[in-house]
């Protein structure tokens, strides 16, 4: 296989990874600070994509669509936090799983109620569509490069937010010791709403960005949600750094596994069968990766040691 193709596939894996990071960062932040398992995070991704598609469709501006995605997802997140999630912080994981599972049902069918059963249209703005030629002669879609850029920028921004700002200090305090922040005179419920809305906004942003090159439809959030969970479990729940490393690992494993496993199988199998078995194993690849990581380190790569 030519090396240019390999480099291109690595870029693809990277791009997939940074988008997963946007999802996983919010999920891991919410778990780290509030101790909440939020299955409804995928719904916020969907809310972002639908908001972007609706606004971009009405105004013709992709940028306004992105803003709408951020606002709508953050707003939906804040509402959900205030009405439902807030009552679950002290509840068992089991109750959290059930309640947020219920939220998925409500969000999904509610969205279908409002927007109908057909996928919506959301396209890349002309300015950043089409391929560019990279050094070495690789033709690569500009939009995907932009996605990688945005993902990395968000990662840096999050790092700065958490390490360099007052809110960041509060978030870190909340991760370490919940009683402590109360003692510091911080309004916990406001902080929690803020963190939840921030996580939701990141998910909404991911939904809108990815929605432009995928299908904006009801149920689009659940597959991504499962992947994001795999990411944060591999990285260690509560760790932003872990989420970043985990996201890239999952992105690369999934992309490269899908490409290279069938090739590998072709060495000792007939082509069609190799394709099928190779892609079958590849579809299980990230789960196998997660299993291996957890057997090796039961709290993930960067998780707090028990």
């Amino acid at each position: 296989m030519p090396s240019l193709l390999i480099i291109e596939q690595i870029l693809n894996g990277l791009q997939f990874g940074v988008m997963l990071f946007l999802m996983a960062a919010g999920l891991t932040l919410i778990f780290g600070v509030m101790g909440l398992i939020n299955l409804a995070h995928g719904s916020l991704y969907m809310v972002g994509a639908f908001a972007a598609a609706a606004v971009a469709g009405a105004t013709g501006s992709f940028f306004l669509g992105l803003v709408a995605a951020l606002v709508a997802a953050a707003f939906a997140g804040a509402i959900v936090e205030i009405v439902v999630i807030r009552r679950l912080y002290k509840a068992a994981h089991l109750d959290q799983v059930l309640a947020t599972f219920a939220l998925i049902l409500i969000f999904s069918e509610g969205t279908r109620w409002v927007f109908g059963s057909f996928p919506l249209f959301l396209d890349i703005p002309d300015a950043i569509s089409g391929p560019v030629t990279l050094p070495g002669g690789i033709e690569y879609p500009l939009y995907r490069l932009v996605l990688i850029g945005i993902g990395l920028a968000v990662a840096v921004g999050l790092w700065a937010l958490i390490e360099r700002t007052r809110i960041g200090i509060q978030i870190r305090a909340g991760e370490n010791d919940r009683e402590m922040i109360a003692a510091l005179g911080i309004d916990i419920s406001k902080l929690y709403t803020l963190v939840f809305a921030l996580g939701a906004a990141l998910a909404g942003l991911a939904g809108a960005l990815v929605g432009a090159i995928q299908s904006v439809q009801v149920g689009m959030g659940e597959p991504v949600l499962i992947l994001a969970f795999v990411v944060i479990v591999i990285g260690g729940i509560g760790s932003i750094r872990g989420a970043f490393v985990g996201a890239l690992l999952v992105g690369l494993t999934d992309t490269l596994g899908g490409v290279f496993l069938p090739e590998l199988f072709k060495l000792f199998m007939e082509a069609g069968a190799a394709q099928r078995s190779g892609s079958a194993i590849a579809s299980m690849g990230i789960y196998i990766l997660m299993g291996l990581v957890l057997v090796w380190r039961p709290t993930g790569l960067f998780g707090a040691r028990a």
Partner: protein
Amino acid sequence: MNRRVLGAAAVAALCATTAMADIKVGMITTLSGGGAGLGIDVRDGFMLAIAQSGREDIEVVIEDDQRKPDIAVQLSDKLIQSERVDIMTGIIWSNLAMAVVPAAVNQDVFYLSPNAGPSPLAGAGCHPNYFNVAWQNDNLHEAAGAHATAAGYDRSFILAPNYPAGTDALTGYKRFFDGDLAGEVYTQLGQTDYAAEIAQIRASDADSVFFFLPGGMGISFLKQYADSGIDLPVVGPAFSFDQGILQAVEEAALGVVNTSQWSKDIDNPTNAAFVESFQAEYGRLPSLYASQGFDTANLLLSALERAAPSDADAFREALRAADFDSTRGEFSFGPNHHPVQTIYAREVIKEGDVFTNRIIGTALENHSDAYAADCKM
């Protein structure tokens, strides 16, 4: 899951009509969750035809399978055991059809398929009470292969999800494609990112691309393909270029050739009337699925004119005759009760603000399917 829709009955006459209904049709289709759009179209097309017939003695019991095989099986039990329907129809997905149809037809119910046509039901598993009014699953892919050959392509890159319908699709394409393969890729079911596959296409020496990626998968692929800058011609079955889906893809699909047994510009009076009345009734353009639902209902109505389902043999003969005006023109059944029909090549165009299809040629004339020989009936 107990929605009753009464064919052509005034709401005021609800009770009376129920009592009067002589013929009971059970429709199991997907109305909620992912893929609901297809089921809704089939239902609407079907009910339009029933309404236009003016018959008040037909009761249609409509149930939502949520695209879950186990739910579909239960609904089928319910329709047969409790509602005691004579005829069943409506299933969209092959895996649900495989779960429901064999058991249903063995309980002496007639089943008319408005969409799915899995190969076992066309071949060794065919049944006198099973009629497919859409296509055998391979048909549109075979037509795509035939079109690619006719268009002079030598090297196709082909891809489909790694599940039975996907394997069947690639097999069907290869059956009618005379050139070589530049690549054959099975993607993950439900995959949304095709960057890796697109990179492989770019790196290959293909001169054309064939894909079968139903639903959201196809939307994602088309958008990403259009953005990749690769300008190889694309061929696919109609599923990814249908009315509902095109509006989510827009320019990315322009110019793509797809194969279909129906198109809204097929020139015959039935089709013209169907397109017009569907738009008038529901305020949207009809889709492939709507046309299949419409044809299914009309086939049923034509058979009911000749015989009652209680006289199974006569009713079966009446269905087999397929004496109705189909939206796709010439239509008849082969020996395995699957359609013998013409499959067209269509091109995606923009008509005003609306993206739609236009017929550019015939891919396969009076085409049957590859499994009929295995059917002993």
